[in-house]
C-alpha cells in the first residue's frame, strides 16, 4: 500500500482511532487512488518576485479594456469543407429570425468572443491569464504554466484553455466544451437571403458543435490600441479540415467609463419562442423564464 498523502491532516489519524468511519473511508479512498498529492506550498517571496518579473515584459494586453469593433457574426468568405452530416443539417436549416441570445443563458465559446457592446479585460499573474468578458459576466482562465490539456476535461461553457507566447502572439488552445455553447458553423449564401435584411444575424447558421471541438486563438497587438484575434476551429463532426475564421478586432479603452463592470443577469422577460423562433418580450409577467 502506498503511503498516505502528505497533506492529510494529522488529526485524521486521531479521528480514525476514535472510530470516525467517514474519515477512515476517506483515507482508504485517497490512498487507493494512487495520486500522491504533494502538499501545495506557496512560492517564497523571492521566487514569486522573480515569477512576476518574468511576465512583466510580455505584450501589453493589460491596460484598460477591449471593445469589439467587428461585426457580431463571422462571415465565412471561403466556403468550409463540411462533413456529410453538417451538409445535411445545413440543407434543412431555417435561419434564426431573431437574436438567439437575448436572455441570461451564457453563450460560451466560441461565440461569446463575438459579442460586442461591452468590453473585455485581460489580467495576468504568473502561470495564468484571466479574461473577463463583461457581456456574459464570465472569466476565462487561461493557463500559461506549460501544462498539457487534461485527458478528460469536464464540459464547460468556456472550456479548458492553455496558452503560450509565440513571439508577440498569445496562442490559446481550448477544448472541453459543453455541448450547448453557441456555435456558428457557417453563413448561408447571400443570394438566398431577403434583400436589405438589416439583421446582423441574417444568414447565420447556428448549430451544434461536435464533442471534439477545439479552438486555437491567436491574439496579438496590431498597434498599441488594437488587439487582433484570429480563431481556427477544429471540429471533425462539422468541418473536414480545420477552418480559419477571419480576424476580429478590438480597440483599447482606458477611460473610466471603459472600466469593467459587473454583469449580473437577472431579468429574463425576453425569450425566444420555440414555436415561432422569434424573440418575444413577456412584459406582463416578469417572472417568465427565471
Amino acid at each position: 500500500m502506498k503511503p498516505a498523502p502528505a497533506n492529510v491532516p494529522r488529526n485524521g489519524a486521531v479521528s480514525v482511532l476514535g472510530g470516525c468511519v467517514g474519515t477512515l473511508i476517506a483515507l482508504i479512498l485517497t490512498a487507493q487512488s494512487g495520486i500522491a498529492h504533494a502538499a501545495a506550498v506557496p512560492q517564497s517571496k523571492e521566487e514569486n518576485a522573480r515569477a512576476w518579473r518574468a511576465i512583466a515584459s510580455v505584450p501589453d494586453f493589460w491596460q484598460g479594456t477591449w471593445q469589439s469593433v467587428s461585426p457580431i457574426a463571422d462571415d465565412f468568405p471561403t466556403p468550409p469543407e463540411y462533413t456529410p452530416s453538417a451538409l445535411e443539417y445545413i440543407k434543412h436549416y431555417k435561419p434564426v429570425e431573431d437574436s438567439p441570445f437575448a436572455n441570461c443563458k451564457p453563450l460560451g465559446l466560441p461565440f461569446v468572443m463575438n459579442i460586442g457592446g461591452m468590453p473585455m479585460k485581460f489580467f495576468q499573474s504568473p502561470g495564468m491569464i484571466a479574461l473577463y468578458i463583461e457581456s456574459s459576466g464570465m472569466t476565462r482562465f487561461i493557463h500559461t504554466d506549460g501544462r498539457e490539456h487534461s485527458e478528460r476535461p469536464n464540459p464547460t461553457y468556456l472550456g479548458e484553455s492553455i496558452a503560450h507566447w509565440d513571439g508577440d502572439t498569445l496562442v490559446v488552445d481550448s477544448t472541453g466544451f459543453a455541448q450547448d455553447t453557441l456555435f456558428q458553423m457557417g453563413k448561408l449564401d447571400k443570394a438566398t437571403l431577403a434583400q436589405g435584411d438589416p439583421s446582423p444575424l441574417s444568414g447565420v447558421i447556428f448549430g451544434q458543435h461536435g464533442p471534439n471541438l477545439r479552438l486555437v486563438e491567436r491574439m496579438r497587438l496590431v498597434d498599441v490600441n488594437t488587439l487582433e484575434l484570429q480563431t481556427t476551429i477544429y471540429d471533425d463532426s462539422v468541418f473536414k479540415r480545420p477552418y480559419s475564421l477571419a480576424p476580429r478586432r478590438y480597440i483599447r479603452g482606458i477611460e473610466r467609463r471603459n472600466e469593467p463592470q459587473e454583469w449580473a443577469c437577472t431579468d429574463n422577460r425576453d425569450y425566444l419562442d420555440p414555436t415561432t423562433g422569434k424573440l418575444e418580450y413577456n412584459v406582463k409577467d416578469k417572472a417568465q423564464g427565471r
Partner: protein
Amino acid sequence: MKHSNSTGKMQLKNLLVVIVALCCGSIAYAHHSFALFDRSKLTTLSGTVREWKWANPHTWLTVVVRKADGTDEEWALVGSSPNMTARWGWNAADIKVGDKVMVDIHPARDGKTIGELHTVFLPGGKVLADPGGQTGEALAGGATNLPTQPQGELYK
C-alpha cells in the same frame, strides 16, 4: 417659433446618427431583437413613468401615455444594458417613477405597445441617448451630439 438653422442642422445630424446606426450598428444590438422593432421609424411618446428597471440584460422603462381620447395606455420599452447605458452617462437614479418624460422609440412592427428606447428626455432637461446600435468606437468613445428635443412623430 424656434425653427432656426441650428435646429435644422441638429435634425440633419440626428438623421446622420440614425443612418450610421442603421448601416453599421451590428455591434451593439447584441442582445436585442432584430425583428420586433422598426428601426426606420421614430415615435415620440409623452407620458408618466410607471416602472424603471435597471437590470441586465436590458433596462426596461414602462410609461403610461394618456391618449387624445382620455384613455391610458401602457408602453413597455426595452433599452440597452445598464453596463452600456452607464458608459453613455446614464445613472439608475436618473429616472424615477412618476416622472413626466418624453421618449423617442423605435415602435414594434406589429403595433403592440412596446418599443425600443432611443432617447429619453427627462423633466429637468437631461437627455439620455441609448447606445444600442452604435459602433464599438462610439461605445468606447462615450455619448456625443445629444439631441435637445424629441425627433420622432408624436404619438397621440
